[in-house]
């Protein structure tokens, strides 16, 4: 992939990425946030808007992270971070918790990813076919089960390779699952036509973005 010289632009920071995704979540949705950047989304839900966050380990209705002197040692999320519970929250066992996921009851899951293809394939759990002891956790359940899957990730790898591809080279988490991608460069829908750009970082042109993206980008019809 060729790098093109680009006029100065300002990539979204991780908090901005999380904030953009959070802004697009309507009130009342049940949402599972993957480990890493997606977890930050809960910090950016607009005030007064009720969104109900789910964690695979049987926690529904999580609130913000606890203050350091108010940690409840029995209350963690799937990323094994201490969390809080909002009034209205509830606990359940793992099979009941994954019934919510696998039974199609979650309105949204937001995961990180290594690669997303323009047919919606996602690879986020192993970086080679021969990974020693790859760790899948709940990612395949979430990708296959949630009503919508969004991905929050850097647009390119550290060495500049596009993470938005025509075909995932890493082992798949689920085929055809991703509906939307928030990167540090753009917000992109995955449609029947492929990647459709909904918005870009300030100063970035579509040509600039395409230069950093393996798969073909489209504008909204």
């Amino acid at each position, binding site marked *: 992939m060729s790098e093109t010289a680009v006029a100065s632009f300002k990539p979204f920071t991780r908090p901005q990425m999380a904030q953009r995704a959070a802004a697009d979540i309507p009130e009342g949705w049940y949402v599972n946030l993957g480990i890493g950047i997606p977890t930050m989304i809960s910090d950016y839900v607009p005030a*007064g808007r*009720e969104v*109900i966050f789910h964690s695979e380990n049987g926690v529904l209705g999580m609130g913000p992270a606890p203050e350091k002197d108010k940690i409840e040692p029995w209350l963690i999320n799937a990323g094994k971070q201490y969390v809080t519970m909002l009034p209205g929250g509830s*606990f359940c066992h793992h099979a009941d918790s994954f019934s919510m996921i696998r039974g199609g009851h979650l309105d949204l899951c937001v995961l990180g990813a290594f690669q997303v293809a323009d047919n919606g394939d996602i690879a986020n759990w192993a970086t080679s076919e021969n990974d020693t002891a790859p760790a899948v956790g709940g990612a395949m359940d979430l990708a296959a089960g949630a009503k919508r899957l969004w991905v929050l990730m850097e647009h390119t790898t550290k060495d500049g390779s596009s993470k938005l591809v025509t075909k995932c080279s890493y082992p798949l988490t689920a085929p055809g699952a991703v509906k939307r991608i928030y990167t540090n460069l753009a917000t992109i829908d995955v449609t029947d036509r492929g990647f459709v750009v909904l918005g870009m970082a300030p100063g970035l042109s579509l040509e600039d973005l395409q230069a950093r993206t393996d798969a073909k980008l489209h504008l909204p019809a």
Partner: protein
Amino acid sequence: MINKIVQSMADLMSGIKDGSVVLLGGFGSVGQPNALIDGLIEQGAKDLVVAANNAGAGHVGLARLMELNRVRKIICSFPRSSDPVVFETLYRAGKIELEIVPQGTLAERMRAAGAGVPAFFTATGVGTKMAVGKEHREIGGRTYILEEWLKGDVGLVEAWEADRWGNLTFKQSGRNFNPLCAMASDLSLVQAQHIRELGEIDPDHVVTPGIFVDRVLHVPYGDPSGF
């Protein structure tokens, strides 16, 4: 603010379409969403497929819905009751279809629908009429048959407590099929004896979390009135 509590039966019942599959909670007279069945009668949807443990008794509730020729098919484990006249009359006249399902298979099919399991193997019914036409498979030296999930378009649920997020508890043997109807249905409608403030129900004691519930109506009818 999320508020699943509605103020009228008409609001609760809005959008139920003709031809819907309706899953009905309750076992005996305990935990039966009688007010919701009356609401459905009033609402008018017809050509319904109703799944419930029984096929109604007397001329009220489910029996009344059937008597009005609104039910095309009933899926149940035990069509008999203390007064099954409505069902039996319709059934003998060929005016209602019947699918008999073992009670545990009925419960498990609903649970499967809620849990994203489209089909599962079970030993129940193997070697009986229930197994006719079903896929058989030997697993670990025993024969099982394949059963499919039972999804509801609408679930009618009776609960003891509910809050505005739709979290539910049930009273004693009033739990029965109710949590399953909630999780298995696209539109889960609840009549609740008590409305609680958010957070009043202990998070460890919630039986049906609000994710499985769409709308709640306060119906403080008191105790079940016998059979």
